[in-house]
């Protein structure tokens, strides 16, 4: 069973995404802030990290920088969760977000479950 780490400061959303992913046979761990998220990533070594962009204290961008600087978490695939869509069209296949000068795949809130699952499958190479 693949392991997914969700890092988002909105606990309601974390709960809902967790339900959705567990229903689709993923193991889910979560954290509600960037720094703790990084620690959990090092500890559990998930297969994928879903990361909110705007979080108090340590933002998604900073948390990703931490992940990239650590040898064990450097190559973890990252999927950003954002309200700031770079592509507002509803039917475009993949949204992207520029974080620290690099483009990452992104899911726009409000999200379509099918799109979220498709993006996860793609990043996990399933």
């Amino acid at each position, binding site marked *: 069973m693949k392991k997914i780490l969700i890092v988002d400061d*909105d606990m*309601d*959303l974390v709960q*809902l*995404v967790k*339900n*959705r992913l567990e*229903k689709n046979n993923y193991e889910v761990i979560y954290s509600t802030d960037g720094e703790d998220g990084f620690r959990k990533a090092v500890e559990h070594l998930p297969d994928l990290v879903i990361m909110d962009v705007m979080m108090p204290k340590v933002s998604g961008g900073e948390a990703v920088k931490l992940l990239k600087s650590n040898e064990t978490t450097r190559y973890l695939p990252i999927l950003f969760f954002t*309200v*700031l869509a770079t*592509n*507002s*069209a*509803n*039917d*475009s296949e993949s949204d992207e977000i520029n974080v620290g000068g690099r483009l990452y795949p992104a899911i726009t*809130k*409000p*999200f379509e*479950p099918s799109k979220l699952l498709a993006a996860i499958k793609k990043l996990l190479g399933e």
Partner: protein
Amino acid sequence: MGPKNKNKFFLTPLDEVSVLRKFAILYLISSIIPMGLLYFIYVNGPKIGIIAMVLMVIGVLVGFFSIRSLLTKAFTIAKENREGLAPFLKPETVQELNESENELTILSHTFSAVIKQFDNNINELKKKNEELQTLDHLKDDFVNNVSHEFRMPLTIIQESIRQISEGMFGEINEEQMKYLHMSLKNIESLKKLVDNMLDISKIKRGKFELIKKNIDLGAIIKEVVFSFSQKVEQKGLEIKVDLHSEPLEVFADKDKITQVLINLVGNALKFTDKGLIEITAIKNNEFIECIIADTGIGMAPKDLTYLFSDFYQIGRWDGHQEKGTGLGLVISKSIIELHNGKILVESQEGIGTKFTFTLPIAVEEKGKTP
């Protein structure tokens, strides 16, 4: 009045000396003319001379009285309105104006005050205009922020209800399902409104970006028509697509043009109960012209005036229609205009509506080998 008052909007009031000087000049002119007249009589004989003299006297009298009556009126108005001028004049001028009985002084001060007032009004309007522009920017910022803030709670509500309706937390009965679907449908409209408001806000801030490529408009039309096929069937309507050539390549942003077509075809469907919707696309010089015509309820001239304004909705209260956001056409117009195209509407109440938009044809791609 001293020479210090050099504001270009003030006329320097005539002082007594300069008035005397002007009269002296007038006196000289009026004495030279009779002398000329005497010479004229001397040359042409007394008969013609007398006629000329009589005509001249009449002319002078008519001129004198008309000018006098005009000036008297002006003086009277100026005198009567002296008090009202005070805010527009310097204090010392006001005093002079109130004490003076010299009509020319009063008139010139009045004139200055009127011009000053004009100047004040224009400055005030400029200031008001700036204030309004600031308010407009604030409104756009507000719309932008609110739209973003809406997205989070919407996400939570939508996903919660979805998970419940999917039976994730237990079996749902038919009655419960009906209301869950009702909620989801309304969340969907709210989402659409938020998306539209974000689009509008981007357009107003000049941040609405287009990704232009050479694309086939015909294919997009077919796709959009296909997406509506279920609705068309439900209403017992027909959509006729007439593409004059294929492909009809335009240089445009595919997602955005799809958005425009969904809006226009969706509107046509919404307001048509019988008959058909005709979509025609034809190449016209450097542009592709696309026409969407329906046999629907049409619009009154009053509606046409505001059709492309923010949040304008045409009332249709039969309760069966899904409510729009009143932003679709504003966005469509902006999208077409950002492509250097044009969008026009013609409509007749009870007969139908016809939207026409143009898009530039595809550009030749450089370095592309055939």
